[in-house]
């Protein structure tokens, strides 16, 4: 596995360095003061350096590193979601439970690889018990809205995100001890697809995909990004249990889901009247702005691998 990890780290270093040098040259040549797009581009690339560094550190701590890192990502994402959506004074205990019980318990299930409960704890137990607690409090004002906001909050920020470290619990014959590479594959392909869609959109974008939901998404960006990231998936098949063709198909599905995740996240933000989820990551917005695609891609990727590649 060392060999593959070295290649990935060198590859990411080369890509980020190229991006930084390109942005530097563009900024030097551009008229001053710099345009907002260019300033934002530089901020985004700088944030990428930090994120890749953090991921790499967590990677070296293996199962511990991944579980803790994604529990923290869930925390940051859930905080952004709950801040943005409506809640009332009587929701205090349910909200506390989401942070204090649901996150630790779900990641404990990931840690102990208790698959049976991992997949139903949130969609069955939490989805039934949380509205029950809210009803017991007797406050029915905007009840359905509050309850659905809470359910969507833990669905997106906790349940979906926890499927990334859960990839470590899968038992793929002939791939033992190398599951970390599945996480690397998923993240590189999905986040790479975001970047590629952004680049293709900025270079060739003409036809808006869905002007009502997200003005920045274009057909050109989508198609270019999906094709390029499927190729990227095939290129990375050497770190996976997939053949190149399978890898590109899996990458295509994950990235298409990722695109839909971004679209749904945009719809929620638009509904709540904000542009970004938060301000945690300079140039990108909040944690959910960066992970919205991963959130939708992770469970599907997990179940594809589980269904077709495990025993």
């Amino acid at each position, binding site marked *: 596995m060392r060999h593959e990890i070295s290649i990935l780290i060198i590859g990411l270093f080369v890509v980020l360095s190229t991006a930084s040098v390109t942005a530097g040259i563009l900024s030097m040549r551009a008229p001053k003061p710099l345009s907002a797009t260019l300033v934002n581009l530089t901020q985004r690339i700088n944030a990428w350096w930090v994120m890749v560094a953090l991921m790499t550190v967590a990677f070296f701590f293996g199962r511990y590193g991944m579980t803790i890192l994604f529990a923290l990502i869930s925390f940051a994402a859930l*905080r*952004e979601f*709950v*801040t943005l959506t409506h*809640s009332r004074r009587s929701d*205090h205990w349910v909200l*506390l439970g989401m*942070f*204090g019980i649901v996150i630790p318990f779900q990641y404990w299930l990931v840690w102990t690889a208790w698959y049976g409960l991992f997949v139903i704890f949130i969609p069955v137990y939490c989805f039934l018990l949380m509205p029950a607690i809210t009803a017991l409090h007797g406050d029915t004002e905007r009840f359905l809205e509050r309850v659905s906001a809470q359910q969507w909050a833990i669905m997106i920020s906790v349940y979906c995100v926890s499927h990334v470290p859960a990839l470590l619990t899968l038992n793929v014959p002939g791939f033992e001890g190398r599951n970390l590479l599945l996480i690397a594959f998923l993240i590189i392909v999905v986040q790479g697809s975001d970047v590629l869609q952004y680049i293709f959109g900025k270079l060739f974008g003409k036809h808006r995909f869905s002007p009502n939901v997200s003005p920045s998404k274009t057909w050109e960006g989508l198609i270019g990004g999906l094709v390029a990231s499927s190729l990227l998936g095939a290129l990375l098949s050497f770190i996976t249990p997939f053949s190149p063709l399978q890898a590109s198909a899996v990458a295509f599905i994950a990235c298409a889901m990722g695109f839909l995740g971004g679209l749904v996240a945009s719809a929620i933000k638009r509904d709540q009247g904000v542009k970004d989820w938060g301000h*945690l990551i300079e140039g990108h917005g909040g944690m959910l702005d960066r992970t919205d695609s991963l959130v939708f891609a992770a469970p599907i990727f997990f179940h594809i691998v589980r269904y077709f590649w495990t025993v």
Partner: protein
Amino acid sequence: MSKLALRTYTLLQTVTSVGLSAMAWAVTGVRPIWSGSQPSDRQRIYFANHTSHGDFILLSACLSETERAKTHAIAAAEYWGKSRLRRFIAEDMLSSVLISRTWTSEAEHPISIMLSVLEQGHSLIIFPEGTRNSSDELLPFRSGLYNLSMARPDVELIPCWIENMSRVLPKGQFLPVPLLCRVVFGAPVAIAPGEERRAFLQRARAALLALDPRPDRDD
């Protein structure tokens, strides 16, 4: 106090203040929005909306370490002076200043206590609503703000809107829900020549209310 005791005491206050600010950031990711004023070492009175015990911790977490060391929150003696432990937390750990609503002697007069803090060149955090507010409306201001400003017109009055704290730690709860918070610092408010008390208090209240970044939200 002996030299050692004094040092321990200062250390306790520094550790508490840094620790609390770090905790405020971990829970609420608090960030200051300077909208009309800038961070400064000038002597100031920060006045803010009040919904939660966490309010002044959040506000002081937005100040620099040196500013924080010489900024004191004004708290009610009726609550914080009730037991020795509470008094220790309020006065020694949080270096806040207690005032009583039912003062008897002139030395206990809230305004003279606050003025004596200003005399030392320090800054204040006050909550002119006078109590933690659990309604959705900002309450009318007490006159303290006016009296302080009449006595010390050289001290800047900075309105500070604390966002979301009523959801993080509502009155009556003791465990905070981690939600993102911002503190919006507005432009200084000063008494206009000849302005009478009530008009000034209403204007100061309006200046604070205008900083609410989400005025249309009903939560």
